């Protein structure tokens, strides 16, 4: 508004000054502007038509309006599936070479309606579930709309149910896909394979080298490590909300809920029921229901009517018997109800069996042993059954619940095959969240006592107390197992003393200068550290004897995954304040050791520097305090183990400096340390520190034994 007003004011003032000889100039200028405007208009118009295709697809439209493709009767048919296919023979991994972040890229062909020469459709255009599946892939990180960068191709031709399609024509439709190339890197999803009377266990549509995510594989059709076995989705999952029911004994021990059972199987089940009475229930379809009641949601036993799938929650074990097909949708219902499936389907490849440990969630009974089923189940201990119930429900929640869950698990499995070094572990696939949360996987789990010859590297953090530092260096250098000494010079304003002034010691001594005076410099994984064992020592710890340090190293060798230190500390729960409290008094327990003098594995330096949770590292550097408490938290959290305190308590005091103990007695210091514990516990989300009542002493410590025969005589003297 403002600008246009100004222009109008200026305009009249400009025109009267115009002369004829200038007129042409202005006309030219005007025409240039006009030309420019036209060009801009064209520019605007052209790209608009390019972008319009994407706008058009985002725009909502109907499935009925998709383009129709007519398949000539003689168009090519792919070869039958190649049973010998493996990832390294039939899969073109080069297409996945340029996918970043170890994630495959998946392209989805656009939806078409395929008809034969007579205009008769080849199949239903798309089912609700297949649409959901493609939507899930399209919304995921795997999706790409660039066919040239894709590693995996998913046709939009719906083959979930073989009964809804014409086999030969569907195959022809597949073969004419733009990147088909014998089906290489194409993934088909099928849940209901086979057709009467013999019901093949894999999709009958010829598909050449295409991968098949199939819902009813048997050992004879499943190409191990190539195909993916997926669940048969139960549409009831979306309809019925079964809240999780805690594990424990339920009304029925064993239940069979399937409606279409082979008469022989039903006889077997009924015989079992006759034998075991009320603890077993065999349901059938209801024959006497009035019209209008959904028979799919009802099951009957004699004249008793039960709601399905709610009745599944009343049973501990639920039978999942093979029907015409090996894969049964009832498996999904049973898992949802937290009922342990008893799977009776010889040769059936269980869903996602490549990664899921079905032993933890189900019982597989051979068909010929059906009559022993009840006693097999009875032999399982109650606690194992409860864990299976929990596991069954967790499998449903993670991998069966929705079409999306099924689609993403399938893609993850294929992704893990292509990028095995970034694959998801067994625990990530199988452990329920509660177990994942409480379990600890110690990074140094192998019981191994490192050889003594390796020795340790002492790291002395110093600022400017040169005299005290030199005394520490001299003392530490007397320890037989010392292999290197590293001085971390944390003072940027002052140069370290000249080389000639340093004490002469028998091991290499290196000085590292830091860029900033930070406490975390003490825990940096310096390249100079060549041994696994690290001794962190302050430049004022001059009271530790050579025997004590050597013994500390020996103790570390027996506990290489722990912090092994000298002064011990404790955390306590303050009931009045309702928070944690730091304690440095003479207590019967320890949960921390001070890193003013402590042995630990150098891997923890890496963890401290790069993997410390939250903002703890910056917080410590900003407050110039509590780096040792942070290290104690870190190690206890990652290993689940307590510290080891070595040798009796000493007065940690040096004559000319404020030592750790001197400081610790300071009231404000104590308050700050308590604050650290509370802060770290909230960042870790738990209190990882473990309290123990023991410390490590030499075997003959204070025993009635000649001192000169003891390995470490000079221990505990003040």
């Amino acid at each position: 508004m403002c600008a246009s007003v100004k222009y109008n004011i200026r305009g009249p003032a400009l025109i009267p000054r115009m002369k004829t000889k200038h007129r042409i100039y202005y006309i030219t200028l005007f025409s240039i502007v006009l030309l420019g405007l036209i060009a801009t208009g064209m520019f605007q118009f052209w790209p608009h038509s390019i972008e319009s295709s994407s706008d058009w697809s985002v725009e909502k439209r109907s499935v009925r309006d998709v383009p129709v493709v007519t398949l000539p009767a003689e168009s090519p048919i792919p070869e039958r599936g190649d049973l010998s296919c493996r990832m390294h023979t039939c899969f073109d991994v080069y297409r996945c070479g340029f996918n970043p972040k170890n994630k495959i890229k998946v392209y989805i062909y656009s939806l078409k309606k395929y008809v034969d020469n007579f205009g008769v459709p080849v199949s239903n255009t798309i089912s609700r579930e297949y649409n959901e599946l493609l939507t899930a892939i399209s919304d995921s990180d795997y999706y790409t709309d660039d066919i040239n960068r894709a590693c995996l191709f998913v046709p939009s031709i719906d083959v979930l149910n073989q009964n809804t399609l014409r086999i030969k024509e569907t195959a022809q439709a597949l073969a004419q896909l733009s990147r088909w190339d014998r089906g290489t890197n194409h993934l088909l999803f099928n849940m209901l394979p086979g057709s009467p009377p013999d019901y093949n266990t894999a999709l009958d549509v010829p598909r050449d080298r295409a991968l098949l995510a199939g819902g009813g594989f048997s050992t004879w059709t499943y190409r191990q490590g190539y195909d993916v076995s997926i669940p048969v989705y139960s549409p009831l999952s979306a309809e019925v909300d079964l809240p999780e029911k805690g594990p424990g004994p339920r009304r029925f021990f064993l239940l069979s809920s399937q409606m279409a059972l082979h008469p022989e199987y039903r006889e077997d089940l009924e015989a079992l029921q006759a034998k075991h009475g009320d603890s077993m229930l065999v349901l059938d379809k209801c024959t006497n229901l009035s019209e209008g009641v959904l028979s799919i949601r009802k099951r009957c036993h004699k004249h008793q009517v039960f709601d399905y799938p709610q009745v599944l929650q009343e049973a501990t074990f639920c039978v999942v018997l093979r029907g015409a097909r090996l894969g049964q949708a009832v498996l999904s219902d049973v898992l949802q109800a937290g009922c342990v499936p008893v799977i009776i389907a010889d040769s059936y490849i269980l869903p996602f069996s490549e990664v899921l440990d079905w032993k933890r969630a189900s019982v597989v009974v051979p068909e010929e042993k059906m009559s022993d089923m009840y006693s097999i189940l009875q032999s399982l201990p109650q606690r194992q059954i409860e864990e299976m119930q929990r596991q069954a429900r967790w499998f449903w929640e993670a991998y069966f619940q929705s079409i999306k869950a099924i689609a993403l698990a399938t893609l993850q499995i294929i992704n893990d095959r292509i990028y095995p070094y970034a694959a998801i572990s067994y625990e990530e696939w199988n452990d329920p969240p509660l177990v994942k949360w409480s379990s600890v996987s110690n990074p140094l789990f192998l019981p191994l006592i490192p050889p003594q010859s390796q020795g340790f590297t002492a790291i002395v953090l110093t600022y400017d107390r040169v005299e005290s530092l030199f005394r520490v260096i001299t003392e530490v250098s007397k320890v037989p197992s010392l292999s290197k000494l590293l001085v971390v010079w944390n003072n940027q304003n002052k140069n370290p003393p000249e080389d000639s002034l340093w004490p002469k010691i028998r091991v290499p001594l290196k000085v590292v200068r830091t860029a900033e005076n930070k406490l975390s410099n003490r825990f940096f994984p310096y390249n100079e550290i060549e041994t696994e064992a690290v001794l962190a020592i302050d430049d004022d710890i001059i009271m530790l004897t050579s025997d004590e340090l050597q013994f500390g190293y020996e103790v570390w060798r027996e506990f290489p995954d722990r912090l092994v230190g000298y002064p011990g500390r404790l955390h306590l729960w303050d009931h009045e304040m309702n928070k944690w409290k730091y304690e440095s008094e003479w207590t019967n327990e320890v949960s921390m050791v001070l890193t003013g003098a402590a042995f630990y594995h150098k891997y923890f330096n890496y963890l401290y520097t790069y993997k410390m949770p939250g903002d703890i590292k910056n917080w410590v550097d900003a407050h110039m305090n509590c780096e040792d408490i942070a290290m104690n938290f870190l190690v206890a959290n990652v290993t689940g183990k307590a510290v080891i305190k070595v040798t009796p308590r000493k007065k940690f005091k040096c004559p000319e400096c404020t030592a750790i103990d001197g400081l610790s007695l300071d009231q404000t210091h104590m308050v700050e340390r308590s604050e650290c514990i509370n802060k770290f516990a909230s960042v870790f989300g738990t209190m990882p520190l473990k309290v123990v009542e023991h410390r490590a002493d030499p075997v003959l410590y204070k025993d009635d034994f000649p001192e000169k025969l003891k390995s470490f005589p000079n221990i505990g003297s003040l």
Partner: protein
Amino acid sequence: MQSWRRKSLWLALSVSCLLLILLGIPLLLRLAVPLRPLPGPPQVWPRWLDAELLQSFSQPRELPEDALPPFPAPYSSSCNWGACFDTSQCRSGGLKVFVYPAAGPISETHRQILASIEGSRYHTLSPGEACLLLFLSLDSPAGKPSLVPPQWNGGKNHLVLSLHPAPCPKTFQLGQAMVAEASPMVDTFRPGFDVALPPLPEAHPSRGGALGQLQQHSPHPGESLLALAEERGGWRVAGTNSPACPWDGRCEQDLGSEQTHPRATLPNATFCLIPGRRSDALRFLQALQAGCIPVLLSPHWELPFSEVIDWTKAAIIADERLPLQVLAALQEMPPARVLALRQQTQFLWDAYFSSVEKMVHTTLEIIQDRIFGASAHSSVMWNSPPGALLALPTFSTRPQDFPFYHQQQGSRPVGRFSALIWVGAPGQPPLKLIQAVAGSQHCAQILVLWSSERPPPPRGKWPETAIPLTVIEGHRKVSDRFFPHSVISTDAILSLDAQSSLSTNEVDFAFVVWQSFPERMVGFLTWSHFWDEAQGGWGFTVEKANEFSMVLTTAAFYHRYYHTLFTYVLPQALRTLADEAPSCVDVLMNFLVAVVTKLPPIKVPYGQQHQARPPLVSGGPGQEQPPDRDCINLMVAGFGHMPLVSSRLRLDPVLFKDPVSALRKKYRSLEKA
């Protein structure tokens, strides 16, 4: 004026041209490169207007009303576990194995395999009671027909064990038999039915076997990144700074930093690159032993024991077609993963591959697991220390019940302990001891194992305790002390002898320590072993020393699972040995626990007031001498190696003998002189 006008015209023209070009270029560029993705929303799968109206893939009526199933027609051409193995022949006792005797002279390998089956708990001499019949096709050279075994029955319930890496000499039809073969080809391997064996290295130890070579958890900073398996059989160490030049020798000329060790039988690097050929399967085992993480490039053979071992935890199976990506992935691998993989190689080597016996037992355990079904080993037991051969599913299928999975399960051992007091001859009720133990707040029950000639005293003669006291009549055999009596209700056992002398404080403190180390033995009195150069054998001493490797079971805490292991896993010969020389039983128990933990036991302080008494040795009077040195050497022979590990520390209470008021100390009486 004219020139000025012309000038301005030219200027206007050139400006308009410039403008046109400027506007035109991007337009032309856009038209010329139509494939470049446009900025803006990517093309996604459309949200259909009528998505709600789409039909479900399976009509509600269709699923339940499937046509009735045809009965399964067993495929004659191929076998799987359900179709071709008859578990009904395996009665409740689990797997019983019959081995066909060898016809004619046999090789050393054959003898080793036979010995390890015959020495195992699975072995039976009668083919009638066996549920698995084992046929060793080891020595029959290809071409020479071997006879069809007498109980063949179409191969049902047979396992044909073949260690020939060459094409298996299938001299008779295998029928329904399972095949356990060294590095079988993936194309012919039947998962869940056949067993994939490792190739057998030459001169492999029968039992025990050397530990893996890994000396430290993390790779040494100077260690090479990669070693390559060479055609000639050695390993070539590739320098870390030649990433552009991978392994296949394509650019050998510029591998300046590499050193060649033609005679190096075991690689010294972080990763070991192994081609996918079947002949390289042995290299895989070498890498495993050396603690070098195997990187397998599209192996054409099935990895050993792949049915139960999660190889993704110990090896990297990569695609040979993407070598540069693999190399990049190795270089960028996070240290946590490298650490975990390295350690897993060592655990797997020690648990399943280091001796012929372990390989054979693993094979049989796999088949037994199939028979057990839901009561088999869980994946955790197979894939974490100490391994499935030492974790019996008959004890429990829950990892939390064992002493060694508490960390990874986030669980703790059950809170209290059972005192198990063994009373041998002459059998006086150890009243003082019972009172001391019953005084502990952690004690759940006291069990007296009465192994004396005389009958146990009547109920009234026993002291009154608040804690339930049960008397069990033993069989007067020393090994009976370690029988898994069903009355033991707690995880922890305090094993005692009638002659033991302990105070309540000592018991309390030792139990608290045990809770931190539930997989180890926590004891009061110790022995240590040593290598005796003069005698050329192992010896041991009961003298006080600066280190120890065994604790006496006459006063020790340990997990009740070790009773099960002692009774069901130890070879009968060793238990008989212990029965004949009762004091040897301590050595045997310490060996067993050390084999499982690979760690020393733990010593806690033992009050001086007891030490005037004669040293505690099992077996009562007449057995007070320490066992002779034969015992330890026989044990070493029986186990195949010396498992004991020495420790130089004792765990004391935090304030033990500190100059502080006794009132502050929780375990005061420990310090009484």
